């Protein structure tokens, strides 16, 4: 797949505050990319810059070899699905979908067929003549998608389009939208603060924090190898233990933590403050055969049974907690207060410099 959208050193300031600072992002043709981050991280601002709804304060935006930076929104051919859908209240469902076609001067006799096809794609063929007020939230969302894809955009931007829907509907729509965009071969950028949603939908996820992309990788890499302490914290659950490096043998470091000494593959000088991270499903119960693994003995704080798995919370010392995700059959008799040995592979031990988390 070739590189399609280039966001190059883009900056955006609102008055005194810098929202985006020299941000760069490259998206491949046909790719579905999520911008994932907490509110205020600049993800929606980036989306609006790409759409041309906000002017940039530096940098360039190039789509398929064409420089969009100075083009107004209506000349970019970049579709947007807004968070509140922004459907035209004075138009019917079909007229909403036809709006972009009419604005672009598509031949009158071609419009009804395109509208019909787009409404069929989102399963709203029977709703063409309805008022948008007669639709449910999910249906309105589909109209917004149909309206955006009707103009065959070179790029589709989606700004938290599912945030107003209830959980069940949201999950169904996520799968459906992903399949639809894949079939149409539309390159899409999706803004969300919901890490699960980003995981489900994306080819790649850009984890954003304070106007910076901290990691840009496929969902599995983002989850298993978070590039920064922020990415670890924001995506999924994890055990996080602060500590200090006490030894380095050229391959692994030994870190002193409140839970005990822990080994990790990394290079840090002795005395460096670090943050250890472990994903809950990497942790298992120690059975005395733990060669090349980290083993710590901790007291069980809580035991949560959630059907397909068993969650154990441990006291990791200094007020910290460790979380293990086990099969329900693995520890049937565990009760709060028990002391248990848990283990995980040294390779699965994540380690970050402790700056910003001290």
């Amino acid at each position, binding site marked *: 797949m070739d590189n399609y959208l280039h966001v190059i050193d883009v900056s955006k300031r609102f008055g005194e505050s810098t929202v985006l600072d020299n941000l760069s992002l490259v998206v491949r043709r046909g790719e579905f990319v999520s911008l994932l981050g907490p509110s205020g991280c600049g993800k929606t601002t980036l989306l609006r810059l790409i*759409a*041309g*709804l906000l002017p940039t304060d530096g940098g360039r935006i190039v789509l398929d070899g064409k420089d969009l930076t100075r083009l*107004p*929104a*209506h*000349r*970019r*051919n*970049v*579709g*947007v699905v*807004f968070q*509140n859908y*922004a*459907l*035209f*209240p*004075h*138009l019917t469902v079909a007229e909403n979908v036809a*709006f*972009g076609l*009419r*604005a*672009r001067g598509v031949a009158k006799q071609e419009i009804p067929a395109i509208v019909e096809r787009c409404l069929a794609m989102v399963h709203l063929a029977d709703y063409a003549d309805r008022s948008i007020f007669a639709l449910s939230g999910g249906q309105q969302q589909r109209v917004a998608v149909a*309206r*955006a894809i009707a*103009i065959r955009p070179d790029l589709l931007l989606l700004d938290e389009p599912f945030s107003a829907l209830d959980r069940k509907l949201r999950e169904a729509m996520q799968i459906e939208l992903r399949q639809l965009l894949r079939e149409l071969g539309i390159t899409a950028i999706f803004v969300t603060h919901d890490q699960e949603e980003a995981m489900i939908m994306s080819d790649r996820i850009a984890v954003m924090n304070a106007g910076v992309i901290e990691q840009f990788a496929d969902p599995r890499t983002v989850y298993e190898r978070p590039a920064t302490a922020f990415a670890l914290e924001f995506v999924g659950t994890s055990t996080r233990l602060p500590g200090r490096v006490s030894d380095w043998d050229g391959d692994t470091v030994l870190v002193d933590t409140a839970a005990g000494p822990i080994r990790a593959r990394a290079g840090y000088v002795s005395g460096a403050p670090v943050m250890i991270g472990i994903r809950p499903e990497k942790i298992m119960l120690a059975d005395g055969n733990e060669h090349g693994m980290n083993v710590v003995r901790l007291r069980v704080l809580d035991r949560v049974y959630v059907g397909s798995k068993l969650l154990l919370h441990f006291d990791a010392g200094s007020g910290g907690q460790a979380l293990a995700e086990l099969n329900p059959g693995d520890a049937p008799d565990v009760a709060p207060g028990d002391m248990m040995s848990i283990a995980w592979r040294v390779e699965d031990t994540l380690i970050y410099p402790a700056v910003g988390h001290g």
Partner: protein
Amino acid sequence: MGVTAAAAPVGAARTRKPRRPVDLLVLLALPAVGYLGFFFALPLVALLAKSVWTSAGPSIESYARFFGDPFSWQVVGNTLKIATLVTLVTLVLGYPTAFAMARARGIFQILLLVAMILPLSIGVVVKAFSWQIVLRRDGVVNQLLVWSGLTDEPVRFLFTETGLVLGAANIFLPFMVLPIYSVAKMIDPRLTEAAATLGAGPMYRFFRVILPLSMPGVVAGIAFVFSMAISMYVIPTLLIGDRYQTLATITGRSFLFLRNEQLGATTAVILLVIAVAVVLGSARLARGLRRTA
């Protein structure tokens, strides 16, 4: 929906018809309905009766006489012309103003709103007199025109249609701006953004999104200003004088000076019919525009 939902328990308790709580709510309008019925609808009927009542019983004789006189047609023409011009001027000036107010931020919006509402507290007579001073041969407008070299000599504004339209438009401007402003404020700015991302340029966005959505405010503004401009009495008396007659001044003169109550009642009814027709017509036209947009 919020109103009916909140009223439901009361309705259920009192009338045992929980599905129709609206019945009770209607009672809330009763004082106003009674007031308007007694002091407005009843006199209106009396006025209508007076216009058709002759010593030989009811007849449309007075209407026939009115429309048979060419002078009457000129009066109707004057009335419609001035009211239309005033409405147009306030619309052209007021529409952009209303949107500027709706999109202004914080304190600036409040200041604009105050600037628009405060002049309403000054009486029409005072304002009309002020315009007399402003429009005089040696008034501010003429001083400015001569000083800037736009004209060599002072222009005659006072006691002309131009002067009347200028003064009346100023006085009625808030009644155009405020209804458009309240509608404009409700238009989601994302709608224009959405239109832009769909490929609509500025003109297309205005005519296909902003204008149709602001139409209810425009219609309300036109209805307000037109019905006030068509029936204004004090402003033309002070700014254009007795030689220029409109339906409202004729009505006033008939009652006050000529003591011809039948003529006054007749012109009042004609004025009312024209005003209602224009207001209803513009509302219908707007609905049609909305549909084709």
